[in-house]
C-alpha cells in the first residue's frame, strides 16, 4: 500500500499529519509526504517545514522502533521538472517531495506517478473545507483523484464510521482502510445499504459482502451494524450521517453512489460534512 500525504505549512496539515501517522503506524504503508509550494518558493523554508513535518511523522509512527527512518542530514535532489525529492529507506519507504505549481494538479499528478492507493489531506475547520489561498482544493482532489481520498476535518474524533455500500466488488485495500479507521478511532462501524421504493432488493453478492464485513468486525469485538435506507433519501442521509461520525463512501465504477454523487454533490458533501470523509475507489 502506498499513501500520499498532501501537506502545506498550515495548522490543518499538522492535524492531518497526526491522523496520517496513526494510519501508517498501523498499515506500514510506503509513504510520500508531498509539500506544495508557491511558484517562487522560498526554497530553504519549504525544505525546513517538510523536514520538520517528516520528523514529527517518524516520531508519531514509533521513532526508531517504527517502520520509517529519517537521517539527521536530509539533502533534497532537484529533479528536471523543478520538484525536489528525498528518499529515506527505512523498514518502509518514506519519500519527501516538494512540488510547485497548481496545487491540485500537482497532488493529482504525484498520486498518479507513484500509483498511490490513498491521498490524505487536511482542510480548514468549520463549514468551509479549504486550503489557505486555494479555493476548493480538497473538493477537487476528492472529485478528480482516481484513488481513494481521505479528507481530514479538524473536528472531534468520530465515534462511528458510517460506510455506504452498494457494490460487492469492494477492494481488499478499501476494506483495510475502513478497518484502520475503525481501529485508529476506536469507533463502531455502521454499514448502510440501499433499498428501492418497494423495500430491500435482494442483491446476493452485496448482502453477502455486508454479512462478511459485520461478522469480521464482530469477531474482533467491534460493534458493526447493518441498516438500509431508501435510495431517494440518500443525499439527506449522507449529510446527516456526517454529524454522527466519519462517512466512508464507496464510489466504484459500478456503484450507485458514483451516479448519484455527481462531481458537484461530492464537492458539497466535502464542504458541508461535519466530520472527516473517506472516498473509497
Amino acid at each position, binding site marked *: 500500500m502506498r499513501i500520499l500525504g498532501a501537506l502545506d505549512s498550515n495548522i490543518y496539515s499538522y492535524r492531518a499529519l497526526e491522523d496520517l501517522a496513526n494510519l501508517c503506524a498501523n498499515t506500514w504503508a510506503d509513504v510520500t509526504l508531498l509539500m506544495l509550494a508557491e511558484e517562487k518558493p522560498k526554497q530553504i523554508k519549504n525544505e525546513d517545514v517538510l523536514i520538520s513535518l517528516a520528523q514529527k511523522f517518524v516520531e508519531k509512527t514509533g521513532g526508531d522502533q517504527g517502520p520509517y527512518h529519517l537521517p539527521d542530514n536530509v539533502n533534497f535532489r532537484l529533479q528536471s521538472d523543478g520538484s525536489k525529492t528525498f528518499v529515506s529507506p527505512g523498514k518502509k519507504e518514506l519519500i519527501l517531495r516538494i512540488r510547485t505549481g497548481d496545487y491540485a494538479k500537482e497532488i493529482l499528478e504525484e498520486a498518479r506517478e507513484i500509483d498511490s492507493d490513498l491521498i490524505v489531506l487536511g482542510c480548514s475547520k468549520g463549514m468551509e473545507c479549504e486550503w489557505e489561498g486555494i479555493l476548493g482544493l480538497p473538493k477537487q482532489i476528492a472529485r478528480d483523484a482516481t484513488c481513494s481520498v481521505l479528507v481530514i476535518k479538524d473536528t472531534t474524533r468520530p465515534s462511528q464510521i458510517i460506510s455506504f455500500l452498494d457494490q460487492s466488488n469492494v477492494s481488499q485495500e478499501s476494506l483495510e482502510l475502513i478497518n484502520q479507521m475503525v481501529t485508529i478511532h476506536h469507533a*463502531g462501524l*455502521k454499514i448502510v445499504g440501499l*433499498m428501492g421504493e418497494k*423495500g*430491500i432488493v*435482494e442483491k446476493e453478492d452485496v*448482502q*453477502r459482502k*455486508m*454479512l462478511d464485513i*459485520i*461478522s469480521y468486525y*464482530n469477531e474482533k*469485538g467491534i*460493534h*458493526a*451494524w*447493518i*441498516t*438500509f*435506507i*431508501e435510495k431517494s*433519501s440518500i443525499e439527506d*442521509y449522507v449529510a446527516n450521517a456526517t*454529524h*454522527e461520525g466519519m462517512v466512508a463512501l464507496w464510489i466504484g465504477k459500478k456503484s450507485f453512489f458514483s451516479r448519484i454523487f455527481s462531481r458537484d454533490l461530492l464537492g458539497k458533501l466535502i464542504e458541508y460534512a461535519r466530520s472527516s470523509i473517506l472516498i473509497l475507489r
Partner: protein
Amino acid sequence: MARALLYLDENLASSIALRYIDYLSTMIQLTPFIIHVVVPEEKEQAGTGWVRRTWESGMIESGKATISRLLKTEKVKCAFGGTPKIKIGNKDDEILEELRITSYDFFAEGHLPTSRSQDFHDLLDSELYIKAPCSIMCIKNLSVSKTVGILLGNGVEPETVVSELKKIWDNSVMDIDLIYYTFKDSDNLEFLERSHASNLLNETEELLKKGELPCSNIHVIAGTPEAAGDFLINYAFIASSFPPKKSLVAEVLAYTPNSVFLCKGKKSRKKGTEA
C-alpha cells in the same frame, strides 16, 4: 433450557438471524428449532390425491435443500433441536400453527433494519406478531454483547418482561441494564437523574431482584426515538413488552438497529387470541 422456534429462509435477514442465534446460544442455554415455509405460487397449487402428494413432497425437498444450503454456508456451531421443520403454505399461518401445537419460549426471525420506522410497525401489526402465543425475538443485526437492555417507558409491563427473560435466563452469563426512556425534542440524547423516571423503574428493579436476575446499570434518557434507538446499539438485544400501537416505546424499538425481544404476557397473548 429455553426452546426457540427460528424461522429461516435463504436471505441476508436469515443469515444474520442464524449467526445471532448461534452467538446467543453461547450466552444462554438455548435449543433452537428451525422452521422454513415454502410458499407456493397460486398456479402451482393444483391437483388432488397422488398428484398433490408428489407435488408436496417436491416442495418439501426443495425447502430442505434451501435450509441445508443456508446451514452449510453459515457454518454455525449450536446444536439444533431435531431436523428442520419444512411447511408448505402461508408463512404466518404455518408458523402460528407450529407455535400453537408445540411449546416454545420464543419465536425468532431475521428482519433487516431500515430507516423507515413504518416497516417495523407493519411487522408489529402483522398477524404473526399479534397472534403469536409466545414472545418474539426480532433479529435485526449481529449484536455481540454480554449485556441485555430492558427498555422501559409508558405502556411497558415490567412483570411480563421480567418473567419472559427469566424463562430464558438459566445459567446465563449475561448482565442486564435498565433504560428508562422519555421523549424530548432534541437532537442530543440527554442522560437524566434517576428521580426523573416514574415508579416503573423501581418496580422493574424490584422484580429483577425477586427473580434473581442481575441489574448492572440504570440509564434514564430523554430524546427523540431515533437518538434513543441509536443509544441502544451496544446491547445484545433490547427487551420490552409487546408495545402498544404507535407508542413511543414502539417508535424507539423501530428505530434501533439492534435486535428486539418483544415479551408477551397473558395480556398481549389474550389480545392475540381475540384478534
